[in-house]
């Protein structure tokens, strides 16, 4: 059985006209259906830009992006992906239920069908009973769960997440990580996940794509072969620390490749010496 890759990126470059910055330089990346791929890298490496190009929210300068075998543009028009940002981006004038129902309304679902779907989603993110609340009545973690429920409500095959837990405290973040993995397994979706956190990327992903900055390149890809399903034990798995080291090394190497032009070079040499 041949199935189109969920995301297929070849020779992708992005140059921002303003300031003439090469944000992404000849990126190649394939994500297979059902995979959970994290993009990790220093700030300014273009990982959020890459995610937005996959979602056709930004146009690439060069190269091809296919989503489910279609152009990224067509995939956006077909509503092939759901997106979650660092902020929940909920609309204050809508209740929790109405926020989750937003993409369903836009897809022309009938009211009955919408309501039962919203209930399912509330159960999925464990927010039953909060449907009539307004977003500002919820905590940050709960808001982000609503945002995830909204992104998944119309069952898109692909979920794009841009540092979704970056603004949460460590404990909420770990709980959200566990919930996300459970949802990922229940919904059989494909996830592309942007993060700053090495531990988070290793814990969640099937593969971690490590990026280097200015210009943004893929410094290497680490396959995370920790057993599924993952849970609290995963972090204590003997292999876990090793994988974290691998990702960290790639991050450092990515930075070192790039470093000669940067002022930070001596700093990193010093760190190596320690």
């Amino acid at each position, binding site marked *: 059985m041949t199935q189109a890759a969920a995301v297929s990126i070849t020779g992708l470059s992005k140059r921002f006209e303003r300031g003439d910055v090469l944000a992404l330089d000849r990126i190649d990346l394939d994500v297979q259906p059902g995979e959970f791929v994290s993009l990790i890298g220093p700030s300014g490496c273009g990982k959020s830009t890459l995610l937005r190009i996959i979602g056709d929210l930004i146009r690439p300068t060069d190269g091809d992006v296919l989503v489910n075998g279609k152009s990224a543009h067509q995939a956006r028009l077909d509503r092939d992906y759901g*997106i979650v*940002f660092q902020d929940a981006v909920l609309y204050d004038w809508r209740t929790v239920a109405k926020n989750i129902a937003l993409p369903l309304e*836009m*897809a022309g679902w009938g009211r009955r069908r919408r309501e039962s779907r919203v209930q399912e989603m509330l159960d999925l993110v464990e927010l039953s009973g909060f449907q009539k609340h307004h977003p500002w009545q919820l905590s940050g973690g709960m808001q982000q769960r609503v945002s995830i429920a909204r992104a998944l409500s119309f069952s898109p095959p692909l979920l794009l997440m841009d540092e979704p837990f970056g603004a949460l405290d460590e404990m909420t973040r770990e709980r959200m990580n566990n919930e996300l993995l459970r949802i990922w397994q229940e919904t059989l979706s494909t996830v592309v996940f942007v993060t700053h956190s090495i531990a988070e990327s290793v814990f969640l992903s099937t593969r971690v794509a490590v990026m280097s900055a200015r210009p943004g390149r893929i410094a290497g890809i680490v396959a995370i072969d920790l057993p599924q399903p993952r849970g609290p034990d995963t972090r204590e798995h003997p292999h876990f620390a090793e994988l974290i080291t691998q990702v960290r090394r790639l991050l450092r190497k990515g930075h070192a490749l790039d470093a000669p032009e940067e002022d930070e070079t001596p700093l990193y040499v010093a760190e190596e010496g320690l």
Partner: protein
Amino acid sequence: MSVVAPVPRGTLGARVGRSAIDWIPPAMVLVLGILLWEGLVRGLDVQRFLLPAPSAILDTLREERDLLWSAGIYTFTEALGGWVIGSALGVLSAIVLARFRSLGRALMPFAIAANAVPIIAFAPITNQWFGPLEKTSKMAIAAILVFFPVMVNTLRGLTSVRPQSIELMRSYAAGEIETLRRVRIPNSLPFLFSALKVATVLAMIGAVVGEYFLSSQEALGFQIRNSAALFQFELAWAAITVASVLGILFYSAVALVERRALRWHPSSRSE
């Protein structure tokens, strides 16, 4: 899992009770102020053309209630008409300028400048354009007064949307119209309503001051000007009172609609 308890909605009785307590201090200030005014006018024997006593104004209000009532209705119709026309044009222009941003950028400096112009100065001119004895001439000046703040505020509301809200709509393949309807317009409502409230005051000013220059004898502004000229100060003050009460009621009506329409707004959480 952390659980935020649902915000309890106060019972009707509790709300009325609380609002009664909220109302007591300002009501006391009002009563004390009027008593002080009455006392000063009587005690210091202030000339009636300088300042009539509240009791004298109240007597005139009672005696001339038919005249004042019909004059009040007349002027309020003008203000309301001007408010509706000016607000509608303001909102429509804001939507057009939000859609065509370069046009908006070209016109915005003029709109803001117009906001700083004493537009009421044009009242004699609009009087002549639309007929000094016609209600339409006062509606015109009221509409112009209302137009600019409504337009500028609504445009600000339509365009001050977080970029990610727009990206989210794009991710759902939404077009301009749908983004306008589902994001920009709801986002602009708090801005729009604060402008609409200010606009009620401006519309009353436009109507009354427009009438000072030239108007039908039925108008409230005519009554104020005329009775002041004839040294009937109690009547002038009574007419001013009517204008004030109408203005306050107009403002409160819009504020009430605002509270219902913006129940979702975080600012309503204090209730």
